[in-house]
Every structure is written in C-alpha cells, then in structure tokens.
C-alpha cells in the first residue's frame, strides 16, 4: 500500500521534474524514486496487513513480487540513456507512465477484491498501450500500439464480463467470498460461476501472453522500442502470472478439478507454440517475443501443479527470467542501435569487437535455455519438481523436450557472436549500462550457484 501511494506521487512529481530544461536530472530522479519505493515495500516483509476493508492486503507474496517488479524496472532504466542523450522531449512522460504502470502491477499482486484486480490490470495495460506507441515516427511502433490497444480492450471486456458473471453467481467481489461460494457450489448457479471463471481466465492468459491468446505478442514486442519491450516482457508478465496464481489459489483453489484441464491445455499449447514459433524467427527481437511466450508456459506449469511449492517456484523463476531477459534486451538495444538491425546477423563477430556484450548475452541465453550454473536452470528445476509432486510426469516430459528445442534458437545468437566474422566496429557502451549488465550477470550466476538465497522466501 505504501509503495502504491509513493509511486503514484512520484509519477506526478516526475512529470514536474520534466519541466526543467535539462533532461539529465530525470533518470537519477526516477532511480531514486524506485529505490525509495523498494525500501518502503520491504518494510512490509513478514508483516501482513490489510487495507480499506480488506480491498488490498500486503503479505510476503505481494512484497516478493512487488520487489521483483521494482528491481526489474531499476535494471531496465539505465538502458534508456540514449533518450537522455538525444534530449527526447517526452522522456518525463515515458518514465511517469512506467511508474504508473508499476502502481497497476502492485495492485495486481496484492488485490483481495476483483475490482482492484481489474483497475490494476487496466492501469498497467493502458500505460503499456501508450508506451508501445512512444516512437511516434516509426510505423511499426504505431502498429504495435494500435494492435495492442484494440486486442487489449477486447480482452478487458471479456475479463469484465467474467467478473460480472462471477458476481451474479456468488454475489461478491471478494476473493474469500468467491472461494466460499465456489467450494460449496450451488448447482443452480454453478454454470454461471464456471463460465465467469473461464472468461476471467481467458482475459488473464491474454495479459500474460499465453497461447492461444498470444498472437499479439510478436508484433507488439517487435514494434515497441526495445527498452520498453524488456519492461513488457518482464514486469508485465510477472504481475500477470502472480495475479493469475493469486486468483486461482485464493478464489478457485476449491474447484481445482474443474479448471485443471483448461489450464493444462493452455500450458501445453503455450509451450509448443512459443518454442516452435521461436525456431522460425530470424529477428532476435521476435525470437525473444516467442521465448517470452514459452516462458509464460513454463511459469504456468507451477500453476497447473498448484501445491505448496508453486508460489516459491513462480517467484524464483520470475526473477531468473526477468534478470536474463533484461540483460538480453539490453545487449540487443546497443547492437541494434549501432548496427541498425535486430536480425541474428547483426550479432556477427560481437565476441571479437565487444567481448563484454557478447559474454553478457551468452550468460543471458544460457540462463533462458536453462543450462546449469545459471538462474534459469534452478528456476526450471523448481518448477518441474513442483509438477513432479503432483505426478504430472508427461507434462514435465513435454516441457523438457521443449527446453531442448529452446537450446537450438538460444544458441543461434551465441554461434553468430563467436563463430562468424566481425562485420561492424566496436560498440560504445556507457559506464552505467556496463555496470548494470555486469550486475545482471552476477545475479544470474549467483542464482545458479547458491539458489538457496532466493528460494523458499515466501
């Protein structure tokens, strides 16, 4: 709650900082705002509280996911330095929209009432529709914004319809009341409840980009400026999967048997489409978009298995995925800005011209592929062991096979970097971004060597 208030105020303050002639103060200001919000969030650790007649509650679950989101944003910001250098006149608005969308994200992980979930999803999505179109002169960015907006509004309508049906079936918006009504289900209204659940489920899976509601992801991710793509594929996804898990566990845990087939079908479909779709791509950015679909699938394995390990597995995986993805997008931004293309071929010979960038990219790809000694390996291990407890061996086999497919497309960029001849010259990277990239690598390796530091926190 404190972080929601702080981030809202900081978002407004930041718009005023933007009035200053020089744009140099903006990035340090936003970094400071985020650090303060992170500190305020951590105060709530181990101190569960509920606010405004239990509309919203903070517990370790919400604090953990809020921390992942704020830390991801902190890591993403340094890569927006090119906007500062170019004195982009809209920089203050970009940053404020990110802060506002974080408010929505925090609402999505700490809601106790479906209305808060809905308002949270809307705050986050509307900020993202605008951010996707922030590169106004670029036709791809316009397309991304338009597509995201039209499809997102449509699915917002579906969520709202689902919430209305749930209200009709249970007479409540509170998760606890819905859970009570769902467990001793009244046969007269149960079709209403299940229909509502299905529609809300469809809406939320759209927001996390799971198949078959993934079709917007590649185009939107490709058109959005790279810095904001990394925000979309990490923070938005983390908020979405946490909200999804909270909804299913707090409100519909009692009707697990009813939604299990639907969710497991979506999971398998997402894994297949995400990984096989990524193989066919030639653009690194589109590949990362498909890879984000496939990672939504891995995260949903924990949801499907739905036991006491799921929460921790999702938190660990979200962090590992976010750290590796931000590093990958960070390197991609420098390469594509310098070489004017985000195809694999733009990475040719990067190992010789920029050993550091190439190394960071390699670690990020290894982590995303789930190779040992990186965070991604333990992330997958925890997810699979949660599923194993539920005896879903066949699901793990599908997931492992798909990870093997993943190795193919993640290694393509590594091969391009180290085995092809250099085409471009050395790419200049500013010190702050270098520091961020190195911290991301350290964090990834740390998660892969001593996973105990980050596991079983909740």
């Amino acid at each position, binding site marked *: 709650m404190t972080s*929601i208030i702080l981030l*809202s105020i900081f*978002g*407004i303050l930041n*718009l005023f900082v933007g009035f200053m002639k020089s744009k140099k103060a903006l990035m340090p200001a936003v970094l400071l705002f985020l650090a303060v919000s992170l500190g305020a969030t951590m105060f709530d650790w181990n101190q569960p509280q509920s*606010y*405004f*007649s239990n*509309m*919203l509650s903070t517990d370790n679950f919400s604090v953990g996911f809020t921390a992942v989101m704020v830390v991801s944003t902190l890591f993403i910001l340094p890569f927006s330095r090119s906007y500062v250098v170019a004195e982009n*006149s*809209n920089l203050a*608005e*970009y940053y*404020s*929209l990110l802060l*506002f*969308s974080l*408010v*929505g994200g925090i*609402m999505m992980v700490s809601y106790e*009432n479906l*209305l*808060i979930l809905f*308002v*949270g999803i*809307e*705050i986050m999505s*509307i*900020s993202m*529709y*605008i951010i996707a*179109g*922030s590169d*106004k*002169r670029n036709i791809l960015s316009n397309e991304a914004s338009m597509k995201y907006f039209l499809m997102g509004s449509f699915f917002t309508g579906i969520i709202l319809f689902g919430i209305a049906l749930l209200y*009709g079936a249970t*007479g409540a918006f509170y998760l606890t009341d819905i859970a009570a009504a769902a467990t001793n289900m009244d046969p*007269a*209204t149960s*079709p*209403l409840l*299940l*229909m509502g659940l299905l529609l809300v489920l469809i809406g939320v899976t759209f927001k996390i980009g799971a198949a078959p509601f993934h079709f917007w992801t590649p185009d939107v991710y490709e058109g959005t400026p790279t810095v904001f793509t990394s925000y979309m594929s990490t923070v938005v996804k983390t908020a979405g999967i946490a909200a999804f898990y909270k909804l299913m566990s707090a409100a519909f845990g009692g009707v697990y048997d009813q939604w299990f087939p639907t969710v497991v079908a979506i999971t398998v479909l997402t894994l297949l489409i995400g990984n096989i779709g990524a193989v066919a791509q030639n653009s690194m950015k589109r590949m990362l978009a498909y890879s984000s679909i496939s990672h939504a699938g891995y995260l949903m394995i924990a949801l499907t298995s739905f036991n006491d390990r799921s929460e921790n597995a999702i938190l660990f995986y979200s962090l590992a995925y976010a750290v590796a993805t931000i590093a990958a997008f960070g390197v991609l931004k420098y390469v594509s800005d310098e070489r004017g293309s985000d195809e694999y071929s733009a990475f040719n010979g990067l190992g010789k011209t920029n050993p550091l960038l190439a190394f960071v990219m390699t670690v990020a790809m290894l982590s995303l592929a789930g190779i040992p000694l990186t965070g991604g390996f333990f992330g997958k291990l925890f997810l699979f062991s949660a599923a194993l407890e539920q005896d879903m061996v066949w699901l793990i086999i599908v997931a492992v096979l798909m990870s093997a497919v993943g190795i193919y497309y993640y290694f393509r960029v590594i091969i391009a970097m180290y085995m092809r001849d250099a085409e471009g010259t050395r790419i200049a990277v500013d010190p702050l971004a270098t520091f961020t990239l190195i911290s991301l690598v350290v964090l990834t390796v740390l998660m892969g060597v001593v996973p105990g530091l980050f596991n079983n926190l909740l």
Partner: protein
Amino acid sequence: MTGNFFYFLTFLTLFAAIGVVASKNPVYSVLFMILTFFALTGHYILLNAQFLAAVNFIVYMGAIMVLFLFVIMFLNMREDTEQHKPLLSKIAAAIAGGILFVVMIAALKDVDTQMKATAVFDSQIGMVENLGKVLFRDYLLPFELASVLFLAAMAGAVMLGKREPGEQNRF
C-alpha cells in the same frame, strides 16, 4: 405492463446491436449504437437505477457517441475505400464466435437465479445517495486508484498528441 416494457426494450437493444454489426455504413453503425445505449438506459430505469440511467444517457449517448460520429465523419470512410477481409477469416471468425455463443447458451440455460430474496432487497439501492455511500465507503480504494488510471491515460494522450519540435501541422 413492466414485463411487456422489458421485452420491448430487450427487443430494441438486440435489434439495434445487430444493426451496429450488420450495417455497411459506419455512420449507421454509430446511430444504431446510440439506439442500443438508449434502450439500455430504459433498462436501468426499470431497475430503479436512476443515477446510472442519467450517466449512461449523458456520457455514453451524449458525449462519447457524438465524439464517435465526429471522428468517423473526419476520417471520411466510404464503402469503396474500406478494406475487405478475406473470406477464410470471415468464416473462421463466424465459427469461433458461433462456438462461444453455443457454449454460453448451453452452459447458462440451466442457471436458476432464483429471484434472490426479493423481500430483503432494497429498492432504493440505485439512488444517488445510496450509490454515493457505497462508492465512498466500501469501494473507496478502487474509486481513488481509478484516478491513477486517468492520470496515466491523460499523460499518454498529451504525449501522443503533442506536436514534436519541427513537426508540421497537417490539418
């Protein structure tokens, strides 16, 4: 009397809603949509929700739909400039939509909403006073946080609409 009026309004709503989708001319679509909202306003009055009826009438029918009409007239859309979707995607959309429709009817036909406790139902719940009490007491937090949503939308609209330095005015 009220029952007949309900069926009339429902017929009008569905008729106008189908008209929105079916008419070729976008201006007709907007006019049908205004009719849909008008019929919905009637439904709100039947439910004794005067405040919602007034808001629906003024904001949706008045402001937003007029805005729609203006935008469509500015865009100058005509039938011959409209891009036609390929037949395959039309068929696919019809099948997907039809399946959803059938599933919903099949699932919801057995629902018995059983007129929950008509005796204790407060018929004044839709009045401005009661609505205000609920909004500012029970639902204060979502109500206030909606302001963040509007702030984000406003900042974004200004950002997207603002003329960049050196950009020509095209209209």
